[in-house]
C-alpha cells in the first residue's frame, strides 16, 4: 500500500539522486528500473523520464563495449583527423555520438586533447594513440577483437 495522497510531485530532488544511483549500477538507465522507481516514488513514468532526459549525463542505452574518441581539434584536423573519422564512420556505419547496433563500439569526436604534438590523435577506451592514419586505427580496432577471438 502506498500513500501518495495528492502528493504527487514531491521528491524531485530525491529523484535525481535515485537516477544517479541507477546509472551507477547499470551504466545507464534501463526502462524497467525507471518504471520501478516511478512506482516507488509515486511519480509518473513520463515525469521520471522527462527529468532524466533533462540531464545530459544520463544515458538510456547500455554503454558500448569500446569507445573511440577521434580528435578534431585544429592540429589533428589539419593532419588528417577527418580522414580517420570518415574511414571509421564508413567501416562501422555510425556517426559521432552513436553506437553500433551490436553495442560493441561507440564513436565520439573531441576537440583537442592537449597533445597536439602527437596529432592526429585518437583515444581508444581511454588510451591515447598518436600519429594515427586510417589504416593504423583500423589495426588498433582489429587488435581489440584479437584476444576475444582467442577466448
Amino acid at each position, binding site marked *: 500500500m502506498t500513500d501518495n495522497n*495528492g502528493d504527487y510531485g514531491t521528491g524531485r530532488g530525491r529523484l535525481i539522486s535515485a537516477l544517479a544511483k541507477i546509472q551507477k549500477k547499470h551504466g545507464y538507465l534501463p526502462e524497467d528500473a525507471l518504471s520501478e522507481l516511478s512506482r516507488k516514488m509515486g511519480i509518473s513514468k*513520463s515525469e521520471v*523520464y522527462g527529468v532524466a532526459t533533462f540531464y545530459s549525463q544520463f544515458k538510456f542505452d547500455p554503454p558500448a563495449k569500446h569507445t573511440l574518441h577521434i580528435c578534431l581539434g585544429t592540429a589533428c584536423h589539419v593532419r588528417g583527423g577527418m580522414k580517420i573519422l570518415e574511414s571509421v564512420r564508413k567501416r562501422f556505419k555510425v556517426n559521432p555520438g552513436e553506437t553500433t547496433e551490436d553495442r560493441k563500439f561507440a564513436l565520439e569526436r573531441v576537440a583537442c586533447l592537449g597533445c597536439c604534438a602527437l596529432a592526429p590523435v585518437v583515444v581508444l577506451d581511454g588510451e591515447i594513440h598518436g600519429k594515427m592514419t586510417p589504416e593504423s586505427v583500423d589495426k588498433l580496432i582489429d587488435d581489440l577483437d584479437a584476444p576475444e577471438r582467442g577466448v
Partner: protein
Amino acid sequence: MAERKRAERKVEHKIIFDGKAYSFESGMTVLQAAEAAGIYIPTLCSHQALPPFGACRLCIVEIEGMRGFPASCSTPAEDGMVVRTNTDEVMHLRRAVLELILSEHPTGCLFCERKVGCEDFRGPGHLTKAGTVTGCMLCPNKEECELRILVEKIGISEVRLDSSFRSLPLERLDPFFDRDYNLCVLCGRCVRVCQEIRGTSILEFINRGPETRIGTSFHHLHLDMGCQFCGACVDVCPTGALADRTSKWEPPPQKTVETTCTLCTVGCSIEVAASRDRVVRTTPSRTDGINSEQLCVLGRFGIAELVNSRDRVTTPLTRKVGQLVRTSWEDAITLAAEGLSGFKSSETALLYPGLLTDEEANACRAFARTVLRTENYPYRFPPRKWNSVNASLSGLGIGDCILLVGADLTQTHPILGHNIKRAVDRGAKLLIIDTVPTFLDKFAAAKIRALPGDFSWALAGLIWAVVEKDAVADEQELAKFKELPKWAFKLLFEEIITHIGTDERTLNRAADILLEGSSTLVIVGREVGVENTHTHFNGLLSDFKSLMSSKTKSCEVNFARSTRDFDAHWLKVMQNIESMRVRALVMIGDLVPRLSPEWPNPLQDLDFLVVIDSHNGTYTPYAEVVLPAAAFTEKGGTFTAVDGTVHKLHPAVRPMGQSKPECEILALLAKAMGRNGDGLELPRRADRDTDILPRPERDFALSEQPSAPNLSREEVKCSNEWPLMLVNRHNSYLLHGHRLSRLVGGILSLCMSDFVRLSPSTAKNLDIRDGDEVYLVSGKGRGKLKAKVDCDIPTGLLVSRMTAKDPRLLALMGKEQASFWTNTAAVRIEKSGGDDNV
C-alpha cells in the same frame, strides 16, 4: 471570522493600467485584472483551466517598483499597482519573444502574402487554404489557431531569425488524435492539463535546450502508457500540434449546439459542432456543467463516429419473403401494428434501454401499459438517482472521506471518477475496496483488496477496525450491529483478514482515515451488484452507515449503478420470453446480450420481433420490422442523471436519413394500433404523464435489495492443480446494448487487452518475465496472454481485462460467468503452448 474574510474579499482594489484606474478583486493576477478591465495582454502558455506557469513571457508588462518585465500571468495584482502594458519596450520584447517562438514553427500560414485575399474564402464551410511546406495546409487548426491571433495582435510580419524545422515524424499510431510536434510551441499546456487536471501524467517535457520535446516515457505509444484519451490535451493546445482525427479534415463547423452526453448516466454538458447536418466533433461545454469542461473518451471522441456510423439504420425495413427490405414509414408502421395486434396482451413485451431521455422512458412505459397493455416491460428500471450527493462532488474537500466499494468509476461513470480525483486534490481522502487496481488507485489513501463476492467481508473488516479503534466501544455499542455480535466479529476478524487477503495494517489505517474525517461518502458500484451475497452486504452497509454517522458528522451511502443492471422484473420479462409466454416483442436497442454468434439466439422462438434502433444490432436480421431511431444528438428532451439532476438535450442535427425520435415512433405505432398515441409523443406532455405513469424509481432505500441478476456466481477455489486466481474485469462500453467498440474504431483498441498482470513474486516463482507469452489454463479451457509484472497485484492473483466477447475469456470462464462484469477462475500458468487452440 469567516464573515470578516468574506467582507475583505469584497473590498475592491484599484490597479492602474496605462494611466487609467480599474478595480479588481483580491486573488487576481495582473493578467486577470487586465482581462477584467478589458485590456488585451497577449498570452500563450496561460490557460484559464490551469494554474499560472510563466513560461512563454509573452504576457510581460512593466510594473512600477518592480525590476525588469514581470510576466503578468504569474504576478499577483496588488492594490495601487501601476502597470504599463504597451510601452515601446514591452511591445518590442514581445515581438522578439514571438519571433523566437515562431523560429521553430512553420509560419507560411501566418505571414503568407496572399493571406488577406485568401481570408475571404476561409469562412465557415471552406477548408483552410495555405502552403504546404510551411506547414499550414498540414495544420489542422483551421481558423481557431491562437498563434494567428497572436501574430495579428502583436503585429509581426516576418521572423528575422533563421527558421529551423524539427522534422519530427507525425505520431499517429494511437487512436483518436494525431500528434505533429513540428507545430508545437512548447507552451506546456498539454503537459499541465494531463498532470494537474486529469492526473494521468503521461505527457512530459523530454530533453532540454533546443532538443526539448513533448512526449511520453521512452516515446511509448499513449495506449501503452495508460492514456485515458480524454482529449483534454487536444482541447488546450493552442496550435495544430494535437488534433482530433475525426474532425481534422472537416471544414470549420457551421454551428455548435449545447446538449447533454447520454453515453453514460453522468450527464456531461457537451458542445456539438456540426456542418451540413453532420456531427463533426464534440467538446466539453464551456458553461458550468457537472463535468467542469472535461469529458471522457466516449464524450470527446466517441460521439461523432458513433452517430455518423455506417451501421446506422436509416430507413424502415420489413421482412418480405424472408428478406429485410426497405420500405416506407406507413408500410412499416402498418405491418408492425398489424403484427402486434395479432397477439394477446400478455403475449407481448417491450424492452427499452436505460439511457433514453426521460420523455422516451415515460413513453415506453405508457406504450407498454396503455397500448400493449402488458406487464412485460422493465417498469422497475434501476434507480438512476443517488441518495442525494451532487455528482460534481464539488462540496467535498478537506475532512471528507470517500469510500468506493466495488466502484470502478473511471470505467462506469468516467467523469465521476474524474470528479473524485478533483475532490482528492481539494483535500478529501479516498478509500477503495475493489478486486483489481483501478485508475483511481493512485489517488487513494488506502486500498483494500476483495475478491468478487467478498465485499461483505471487506466491509465487515472495516467495521471491526473502526469499532476497535474507539476506546469507548463496548459490548453494547457492538450489540447494535445486527449482522454480527462482538464475539462473532472477533472470531471472524482473523478470518476476514485471511479471506480478503488484506493485512490488518491496511484495515486499521483505513479506519484511522475514516475516523479522522468529519464525513464519509460511500459509493457502491457495479461490482457489488453482481454479488450473490448482497443481502448480507446490505445489512453490513447499513451497519456501517449508522456506525459512521455516530462517530463522525455524517455518512451517506450512494449507489452508482450502470445501465446494464437488471432488476428482478427485468429478469421476469426475460424469463417470459425464454419460456415462450411472450410471442411478440418490441425492443428498443440491442438489449439481450449474445456474446458469440455460435450460441443459440435467445430470441429465436419469438413469433414477431419489432426492433426500434439507431444502429444495426445483433437482432436486426431476425426482426420482422426494423424502425430507424434518431441518435441522441438528433433529438431534444430531458435526461435525469445518476445524481437526480435533470439535463437538457437539444438537437444539433436533423435525424439521419428517415430516422425519427423514439417518442414519435411509439406514437405512430400506437395510433396505428387504434390507441391514442398523443400522450406518447412529445416532451410537453411529460409532466402530465407523471400523474398516470409510474416514474422510474428514483430513491433507493437501504433496506431494499439492490437490483441484482438472479445469476449465481460459481464459487471459485484455488487448489494444487489450479493454484492461481484469475480475475478478469470487462473493459467494455455499451450504449443501448451495442458495443461501442464495434461502432467506434478507437474504442476497440482501448478495450482490447492482451495482458495478464501478475505480482513480481508470482512471476519470479514461475520464472516469467515481463512481456513473456503465457498460457492460462482453467478447468474449462485455455488462453494465451502476455505477462505484465505489476507490483500492485497481490501475490497469487492474476488480473486481466479481456472484453466479454474475447474468445479467450469465454474459453477460460465459460459463458455463464463471462456475462458478469468481473469474473474469476482458478487457473494455472503454462509457459509454452502444447496443442494451442486459441
